[in-house]
């Protein structure tokens, strides 16, 4: 898929995510919007998957360890045809298959449950290890947050993935620099995050997480590295593309209705020249 086509897909997934959260009335818009380009690239360009057979043996896997970004994951999966787009209107409704945080027992296409931060990362390491045990040539992709990286479990995982030389593991950090209570730098800073991962023995790249071409280059480079796990640190803007949430530190979870959602989508499309 051409980069411009991927950009259009990312824009569609943004629209779907805004509408999904607006329909319910509130949700984790910030951390959903900051990983849309990464999701678009993985699901539309990179991963060996089959939406008609979500549990296909030998597939590539993706774990959203920052499980609260569920709404963006669901928009991506719906857009790929894992389930009807209509499902997005059921976000957080009683009995839904689309709970606020990613749940592998509920949603077709979700490869592991996330929600208690740090846990999806360890599971992704287990999945990548399992792919090696089973001698698959598949890969595991995982995204963690910068706030999530305050969890000790992330660094327990970091050391073992390096020890086990999991070259089939490609991780992303969504460095959006905000967490629930405010700027990460004011709470527990993730300064020198690149060198932290380098110190743990990972292959490290740092890119603009909203630049699809940069994501493509980074993933291709990461795939060349087979003796170490890879970390792609993405500088992102929390709530990117949901313009009412872009210039505030209070965008972890926001309440807004469908009218606001439609206005925000219109504003976004105008800005993107669509």
């Amino acid at each position, binding site marked *: 898929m051409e980069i411009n086509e991927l950009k259009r897909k990312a824009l569609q997934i943004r629209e779907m995510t805004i509408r999904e959260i607006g329909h319910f009335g509130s949700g984790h818009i910030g951390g959903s919007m900051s990983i849309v380009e990464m999701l678009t690239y993985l699901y539309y360009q990179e991963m060996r998957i089959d939406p008609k057979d979500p549990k296909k043996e030998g597939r590539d896997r993706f774990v959203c360890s920052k499980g609260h970004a569920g709404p963006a994951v669901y928009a991506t999966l719906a857009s790929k045809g894992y389930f009807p787009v209509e499902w997005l209107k059921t976000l957080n409704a009683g009995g839904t298959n689309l709970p606020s945080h990613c*749940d*592998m*027992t509920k949603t077709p296409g979700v*490869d*592991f*449950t996330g*929600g*208690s931060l*740090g*846990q999806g*990362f*360890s*599971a*992704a*390491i*287990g*999945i*990548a*290890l*399992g*792919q090696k*045990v*089973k001698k698959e040539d598949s890969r595991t992709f995982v995204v963690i947050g910068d706030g999530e990286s305050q969890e*000790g*479990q992330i660094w*327990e*995982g970091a*050391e*073992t993935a390096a*020890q*086990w030389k999991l070259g089939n593991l490609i991780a992303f950090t969504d460095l959006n620099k905000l967490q629930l209570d405010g700027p990460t730098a004011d709470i527990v800073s993730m300064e020198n995050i690149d060198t932290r991962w380098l110190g743990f023995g990972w292959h490290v790249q740092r890119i603009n997480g909203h630049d699809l071409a940069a994501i493509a280059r980074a993933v291709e480079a990461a795939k060349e590295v087979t003796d170490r796990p890879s970390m792609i640190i993405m500088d992102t803007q929390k709530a990117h593309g949901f313009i009412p949430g872009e210039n505030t530190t209070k965008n972890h979870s926001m309440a807004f209705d469908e009218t606001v959602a439609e206005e925000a989508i219109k504003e976004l499309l105008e800005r993107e020249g669509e």
Partner: protein
Amino acid sequence: MKDTTKLANMRDAVMLAINELGDQDERVVMLDADLASCLGSTSFQEKHPDRFFNCGIAEANMIGVAAGLSSMGLKPFTHTFGIFASRRVFDQLFLSVGYAHQVVHMIGTDPGVTAQYNGGTHMPFEDIALLRQVPGVTIIEPSDAQSMYELVKQAYALDKSSYTRAPRKGIAHRYPAGTKIELGKGIELATGSDVAIIATGSVMVGEGEKAVEILKEKGINATLVDLHTIRPLDTELLEKVAKRCGSVLVCENGRYAGGVGEMIATHLIQTVPVKMDFLNVGERFGEVGNLAYLQKAFGFTAENIVAKAEKLAK
């Protein structure tokens, strides 16, 4: 069926079962957290180096990795001391294993006072209560080598997550090879009608056997049940012995809150309400010492079981 009578330590029975499963099923993987030499999971490592992973001193990550391996269709066993296998990793085992419907077989060694010289910091009294909070996890505490070997394999065959409370050192040979040992079915070691003693694990079943003999000399005929499976609870047997004896004493090498005694009391109060008493650590923390000292310090002795049973039998 293997004969376990020549084994020297309980850990050998655990590893005999896991190694056998590993030989039969290449989906079996084993994870340890820098305590491989303590359990002897090094024997699995030697046989299957490509399916053994030492996760280092990072238990929470180990349980998450095991859950990920399970999602790949593999069959992970994990080992660490019981305190770490329960308290330290509780959120991971609750969410990544339980809530995510993954199957992990967790071995938690040195239950209760069997932690001995590692002392109060290493003494798991709460592991049963914690594991009971995770829906669907099988919980076993076999009292001898043969039942350990049998039940680890039976828990595996259920294809549900399991937690095995296993002493590493010392051994009891109670059941000869060929004894019918069935997960979820307690074993009646003595069948009296004056008082029922329900015991879990090697320490309490061992003391219970001695207590039954002392009680017999005093003219009291006690029932003794080796309740090797804590979940699923053998409610049928418990109701039967409660009806027959009219009183029940539950002996466990752990804490009352959330433990075996509370579990049985909750069931019997609804079905066969009888007089009950409990032997456990109550509100106390653990401490260091050899097994004999600790059993005496916490009252985990045949004499104390006899005293409690006598009161109930009156």
